[in-house]
């Protein structure tokens, strides 16, 4: 017991000294568990995040926008893979994580349980959803666990393209015909509040945050990140003549930040519980994609087995 305490104390002071923890270093079990949960959920979010956008690949309005969307969806797959790799360095098993997602046992970001009903949603997702993700991920570049931090650095570089291409879609629609502008406004109306919910419950209702901050897994609280995102995004909406759907939104001169309305947390917890508009569809689509890819995995296995047995027989001879 005494020894455990001293190991934990040493770990904490190492982290307090802004040192990174690497896979083979000693770490408290709870630190490892928290990271495995957070990183695997993050990975699942990237993977499920492909689905709402894949919905528009075949209907992209131009070849240019189709190429961009394909590249973005491919990036999300890559991000999922970087993150699964990072979780594996903590001893998590890849197949277990994938199975947990397919079984519906694992959680992923609730934002992907909302439908993408118009092309403008591709703009709103890039601008707002990727924008909110970047806000969180820039902070995570400085997380105390080395492999997670390195994955985040790579992801942030790529996400910047995602946000800019999304804003460009919104910009083009907002400066188009009245109908196009209306499309952009309507997408902003639907995505604004769910994007704010991406940062998670308020600090008062986020019991695990304090420990994560102490271990420097997180560097900023949910509310801080949310506020920064709002302050950054509202002027971007104004610039293209769109209105943020919050009647209580007001610049607070004294605080130097925006005051904003109350978030509908009932909706947030309902979607987490599985009652969002698309929870079932996302899971079914993911299971279907996995099943339809089975033959590729089998073929790859068969081919590598064949090559292995061939090289064995050559060695034997």
């Amino acid at each position: 017991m005494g020894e455990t305490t001293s190991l934990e104390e040493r770990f904490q002071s190492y982290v307090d000294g802004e040192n990174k923890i690497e896979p083979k270093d000693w770490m408290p079990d709870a630190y490892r568990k928290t990271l495995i949960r957070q990183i695997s959920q993050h990975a699942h979010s990237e993977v499920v995040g492909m689905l709402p956008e894949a919905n528009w690949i075949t209907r992209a309005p131009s070849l240019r926008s189709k190429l961009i969307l394909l590249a973005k969806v491919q990036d999300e797959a890559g991000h999922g893979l970087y993150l699964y790799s990072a979780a594996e360095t903590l001893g998590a098993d890849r197949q277990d994580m994938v199975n947990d997602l397919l079984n519906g046992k694992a959680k992923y970001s609730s934002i992907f349980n909302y439908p993408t009903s118009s092309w403008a949603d591709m703009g709103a997702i890039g601008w707002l959803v990727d924008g909110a993700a970047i806000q969180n991920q820039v902070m995570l570049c400085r997380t105390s666990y080395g492999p997670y931090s390195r994955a985040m650095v790579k992801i942030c570089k790529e996400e910047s393209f995602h946000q800019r291409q999304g804003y460009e879609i919104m910009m083009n629609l907002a400066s188009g015909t009245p109908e196009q502008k209306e499309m952009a406004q309507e997408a902003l109306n639907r995505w604004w509040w769910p994007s704010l919910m991406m940062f998670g419950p308020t600090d008062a209702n986020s019991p695990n945050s304090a420990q994560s901050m102490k271990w420097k897994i997180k560097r900023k609280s949910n509310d801080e990140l949310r506020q920064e995102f709002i302050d950054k995004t509202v002027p971007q909406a104004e610039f293209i003549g769109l209105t943020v759907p919050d009647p209580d939104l007001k610049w607070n001169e004294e605080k130097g930040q925006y005051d904003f309305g109350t978030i509908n947390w009932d909706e947030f917890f309902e979607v987490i519980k599985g009652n969002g508009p698309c929870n079932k569809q996302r899971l079914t689509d993911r299971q279907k994609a996995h099943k339809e890819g089975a033959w590729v995995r089998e073929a790859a296995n068969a081919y590598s087995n064949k090559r292995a047995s061939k090289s064995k027989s050559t060695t034997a001879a």
Partner: protein
Amino acid sequence: MEKDNWKIWEVFIRSKNGLSHKHVGSLHAPDEEMAIKNARDVYTRRSEGVSIWVVPSDQITASSPDEKEPLFTPSDDKVYRHPTFYEIPDEVGHM
């Protein structure tokens, strides 16, 4: 649910000729050929590399963090191995 036995591979990328390969992460693949193909898709989507190495993770032997002291502290007190240890008059010029 199914279990595959795809190995974990560590991926090293040379970003351009003249530089060393650098570790960039890992991935799963059934054999070395697929590992190279996957590495291309996962780690070089934006011209990050001109050459890829893949190594099965279980083939890497790593030093243990517990050995950090005996392995690395002996060099800490050998300041005379650094050029700044020696005082050379300015008049001598750059050396």
